């Protein structure tokens, strides 16, 4: 089943009189349960593409279907709800709320969900999620008391708390040392294989991209090529 489908996506920024086309007709599709790496050098348009995939931005032209739903025409509130229920974000700099416990950080997206879980259930779900990511003993720690890897795990728990269809990771290992990076990437692979979560990893680093099952290379706003990798398995 096709989870998301992009057709001829264009994105142009207007800087005064100059038009800067960043995406020039990008088309691809991703199936449920894939682990895809979007790879490209800086300035290649991969961040813009990720913003569009994450429903943070809408394309200038083209079609974007997520779960069969056309996205480009949605209002900002509609996109917000979609982000809440379908998409989990993991950022390079973790973006955890400072001076807020890991548990509260993970619970945060639940307060914007449509279903409105009662406090007790929300807490239980967050605890389970943190357990799953091996942070059972770090629940009450604030981000400043956690290592980079632990912070990123909290961020991943937060991204997964609303059971999204896609996990969008933007350079998730950019601020981590190589050893911790490896840990996080292995965690992604595990989540992908064991939980069946679709993961899109945005990176400029081929070494990181090779952890994905499929690599989409993007350069200068167009898809340059695609590599199927067999390295996606848990080592």
């Amino acid at each position, binding site marked *: 089943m096709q989870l998301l489908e992009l057709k001829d996506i264009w994105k142009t920024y207007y800087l005064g009189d100059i038009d800067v086309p960043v995406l020039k007709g990008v088309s691809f599709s991703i199936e449920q349960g894939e682990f895809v790496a979007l790879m490209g050098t800086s300035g290649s348009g991969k961040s813009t593409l990720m913003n569009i995939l994450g429903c943070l931005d809408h394309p200038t032209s083209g079609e974007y279907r997520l779960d069969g739903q056309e996205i480009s025409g949605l209002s900002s509130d509609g996109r917000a709800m979609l982000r809440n229920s379908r998409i989990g974000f993991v950022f390079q700099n973790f973006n955890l709320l400072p001076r*807020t416990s890991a548990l509260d950080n993970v619970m945060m997206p639940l307060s914007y969900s449509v279903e409105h879980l009662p406090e007790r259930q929300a807490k239980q779900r967050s605890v389970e999620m943190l357990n799953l990511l091996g942070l059972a003993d770090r629940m009450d720690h604030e981000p400043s008391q956690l290592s980079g890897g632990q912070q990123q795990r909290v961020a991943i728990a937060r991204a997964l708390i609303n059971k999204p269809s896609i996990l969008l990771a933007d350079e998730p290992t950019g601020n981590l040392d190589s050893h911790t990076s490896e840990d996080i990437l292995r965690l992604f692979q595990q989540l992908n294989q064991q939980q069946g979560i679709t993961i899109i990893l945005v990176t400029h680093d081929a070494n990181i991209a090779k952890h994905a099952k499929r690599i989409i290379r993007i350069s200068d706003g167009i898809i340059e090529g695609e590599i199927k990798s067999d390295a996606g398995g848990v080592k």
Partner: protein
Amino acid sequence: MKIYRTMSIALRALRRNPMRATLTTLGIIIGIAAVIAMMEIGNGASAAIQKSIVSMGSNMIMIQPGTAASGGVSFGAGSVMTLSPQDCDAILQQCPAVQYVAPIVQARTQVVYGNKNWVPFFIVGSTPAYLSIRNWTELAQGDVFTDKDVRNANKVCLVGNTLARELFEGDSPIGKEIRIKNVSFKIVGVLTVKGANMMGMDQDDIIIAPWTSIKYRVSGTSLGNVNQSSAASTSSTTVNSLKNLYPSSQLSLYPTQSTTQAADTPQPVRFANVDNILTSTSSTQNIPLAIRQVTAVLRERHHIRQEEPDDFSIRDMTEMIKTFTTATSLMTNLLLCVALISLIVGGVGIMNIMLVSVTERTREIGLRMSVGARARDILRQFLVEAIVLCLIGGVLGILLGHGGALLVKYFKHWPVETSLTAIIAAVLVSMSVGLIFGFYPAWKASRLDPIEALRYE
């Protein structure tokens, strides 16, 4: 549920930066504290002013007898004696708005003690209620005469400070006997100093005695504006020659009746009249009501038909009441201005810090938006944060202001009055300050672009 969650998010956000939250609220705390303290002290002052104006007799109502008229010539207010002591009792019993009633009989005559004499400005015959109406119940020395003295027409009196000074020159007048038109009165008390009244007349130049004593033992006639000491020297038997160019006494224009003539034309006997009646209400607001009630009672008692005019007239202290209301509203408006200014300053402080906070938390806003917060969620979050901040400030300000007012009361002995309205208003105002001054930063936060916000360093 949603409100609760928003509140808890707001509280958590504020707890993340307690120092800043405290400093931010300081503006509101000081503002509200100033308002509360000013209101309490101001209310106290206002109450004190009110009290002093009431002591001037702002809630007094004067009932004067009617006008005599003969063939189109009217003789002015008080020229007919239509008020009786029984009217007093009826007013007291039948007019709930009236608090005190005192009949008044006036005289103007010479007072003698030893080798000194003096003509006091006021010789008032009344009941002890007179002192309550004039707010004069505290005496410098001695005691007030009693209602029993009034019933028995006892020869006792109270003297004012000026009179005591003139006649006794520093000696205690208590127990001394003075002669009022050759009737000796024992002084039982000395009144406290009251000073001049609004017209500049010395209110301490006074003798107060039971009205029965003045009426039956001293004045004889009821016309208080006549100096009766000189009238006494002219006997009724003197022939009126009309030749006296500067008469010191009132001229009788018509020959007096002989006993035979009087017996031939019997007049209905009217028992004791009083010159006027003084009443007071418990508060200034009750005056119009009291006037209506007194009018109804007196018209009924005097058998006045509906179309006929009153045979009495009622006056209140309109001018004083006006002064009083002006003073009070001026005070309130002044306080309101101070309150508004301090709250606006506090509100600007809140807005300033909220703007800083929005800028500083741009990344957080971006993050919240990326996990699905809608613009209105962000708006609500920051708005609720500002309101919570202001509310906390308001509550602390109320406590601080109240404490400050109590301190002032304790150390400076200023009159202080706790005002519930001020407290409720303070809470409402601090909330609306939060709402008004928190709206712009919150709106700004909600308009952020999530991508930009996430990238913000």
